């Protein structure tokens, strides 16, 4: 297994810059997810690592060896494609052995690898079938099997679960996590589905417009987003955002007011913030932090506009007189109805603050987040 080092990587198609100077170090045996909206360049970056796209500028090293001009076949990587890209005219066995035969491995070695891989992926009964005789999940497993048999330094996976139905996606996700554990391999996984990224990855690379917005563990991204984009992109439903104004600053305590709130609220910061009164900020609050708990000091009052009953949770859309409704994620049996006037409460400590450029102001993490992330993760990186 190998590490992957990317320095100042750039790619353009004519006048269009799609990768704008990316720096990233992926550790050996790490499961890294590239996450971002469509068109952010995550697949292009993966294809550049694979050798399917040329590198215009910068360096790419796999296992400390510069790979810029090394052909795809010689990079010792395997890739799982979104569409599986199985050879339609070859059986499962032939699909898996094609690359091994080209590597001119001995027949016994090929047989051994295929039978081992088929066992791991429960494909043994299907080895002599053609791809079209398999279900979506089985095809996906063959695609993964074809990657595994080569025993590469790095696995690249390009949205491998996006063509599967919801139930299968969940089970394949678990299977992928198990595989990573078993193979102890460096894996780079591209997805636009944050649940996949958050559940599978050791570290997530959030991308936008060909640039990296933040690299961090799933919990870091959730609790300590570096900027407003990451805060709004990570987490479902989307984080609530409010315009606020600084009314007081006492070292590590910043007091703000906003149209949405009945009284000023004081947020504890990690460092003394240099904010004068009147500074405009954006305050963000995760939907699950808004709840019907009278012990919490602050409240938002509004009319229930819509309730999405998702089973274990209910998403309550609250009209508080602002253009966007406030969303709260409450328990599934929350006794509210459309049109009800309700108050939802929250703690100021769960609020995130961002300046007008969208950069996060380092806050002191709430106790529960601190416990999850370890004591050294006191604040925003």
């Amino acid at each position, binding site marked *: 297994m190998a590490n992957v080092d990317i320095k100042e990587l750039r790619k353009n198609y004519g006048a269009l810059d799609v990768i704008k100077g990316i720096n990233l170090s992926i550790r050996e045996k790490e499961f890294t997810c590239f996450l971002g909206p469509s068109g952010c360049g995550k697949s292009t970056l993966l294809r550049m690592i*694979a050798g399917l796209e040329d590198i215009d500028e910068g360096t790419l090293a796999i296992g400390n060896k510069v790979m810029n001009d090394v052909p795809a*076949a010689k990079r010792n990587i395997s*890739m799982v494609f979104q569409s599986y890209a199985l050879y339609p005219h070859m059986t499962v066995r032939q699909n898996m052995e094609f690359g091994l035969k080209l590597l001119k491995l001995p027949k016994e070695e090929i047989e051994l690898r295929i039978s081992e891989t088929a066992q791991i992926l429960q494909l043994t009964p299907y080895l002599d079938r053609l791809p079209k005789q398999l279900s979506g999940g089985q095809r996906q497993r063959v695609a993964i099997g074809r990657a595994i048999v080569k025993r590469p330094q790095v696995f690249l996976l390009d949205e491998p679960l996006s063509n599967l139905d919801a139930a299968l996606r969940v089970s394949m996700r678990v299977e992928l996590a198990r595989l990573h554990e078993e193979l102890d391999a460096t894996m780079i996984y591209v997805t636009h589905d944050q649940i996949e990224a958050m559940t599978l990855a050791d570290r997530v690379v959030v991308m936008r417009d060909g640039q990296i917005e933040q690299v961090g563990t799933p919990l870091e991204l959730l609790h300590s987003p570096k900027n407003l984009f990451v805060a709004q992109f990570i987490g479902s439903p989307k984080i609530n955002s409010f315009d606020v104004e600084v009314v007081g600053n006492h070292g590590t305590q910043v007091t703000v007011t906003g149209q949405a709130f009945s009284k000023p609220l004081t947020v504890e910061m990690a460092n003394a913030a240099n904010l004068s009164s009147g500074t405009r900020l954006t305050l963000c609050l995760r939907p699950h932090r808004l709840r019907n708990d009278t012990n919490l000091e602050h409240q938002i009052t509004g009319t229930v506009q819509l309730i999405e009953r998702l089973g274990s949770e209910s998403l309550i859309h609250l009209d508080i007189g602002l253009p966007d409704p406030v969303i709260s994620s409450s328990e599934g049996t929350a006794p509210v109805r459309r049109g009800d006037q309700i108050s939802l409460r929250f703690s100021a400590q769960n609020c995130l603050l961002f300046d007008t450029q969208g950069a996060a102001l380092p806050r002191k993490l709430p106790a529960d987040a601190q416990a999850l992330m370890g004591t050294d993760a006191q604040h925003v990186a």
Partner: protein
Amino acid sequence: MSPKNRITPYAFIAPYLIAFGCLWLIPIIYSFSMSFFNTRARPWKFDMLHNWGRLFEDALFLATLKNTFLIILVQVPFMLALAVIFAVFLNSKLLFLKGIYRFAIFAPIVVADAAYAVIFRLLFNDDFGFVNQLLNAVGIADIAWTGSSAGAIALISISLTWRWTGYNAVIILAGLQSIPKDIYEASELDGASRFTQFLYITLPNLKPVILLCLVLSTFGTLQLFTEPTLLTEGGPGVSTTTVAMYMYQQGFKSFNFGYGSAIAYFIVFIGLGLSLIQFKLLGSKSDA
């Protein structure tokens, strides 16, 4: 549904059905039945094996059958191999002005039979043709394009190839373009060279399309009439007389309609048989 409503849909399709019946179905059945009649003298007499039995004893018919098969064997595989090469060439990412090349390769199909036959007769004239002059220029002796059996078969094969390669290349190009790009990328990562990709990815995936072209070309050549008629007039001797020409001679020159019909249906059955064999040999479960 009222009786009127029940009739309406049939009324709509009636014009087609009447035209189909009069122009297709009745002639097909009538001509097939004709093959069981002795039509050499009036009144025609029913004789089950008169024409069909004669087919297998008629040396001239068997010679035309041999000629036709010879042209199929010489020309069709060569043309299809050339069509695959053209299609791969037209599909290349490195090729500029693809539209022009595609048109140039396809253009022969839109030229009238008679027009191109005249040009080919001039080009391949045994005495003063441009092709022989060209051969002479590089030190090769004249070829008797119309004066020898081999030359005449070659001339017809060359003209058929000129005319139909582009047509097949365009069909194969469509097949090429339908092969997903990502399986080429997957094979690139597997370490396949361009040539390996062509052998192990392109050709197997083109098999259904090549099979279609093979069946169409075989059927087309079984009906071959225009080129030998206009270029060699079936000669020298009967060395380029095809089954279709012989059918025409029997049916419309000798007015032996029964025998002509038997030959026509024999061509149909041979074509069906050959297609079945081709599907059996080349078709696989994946193409079914």
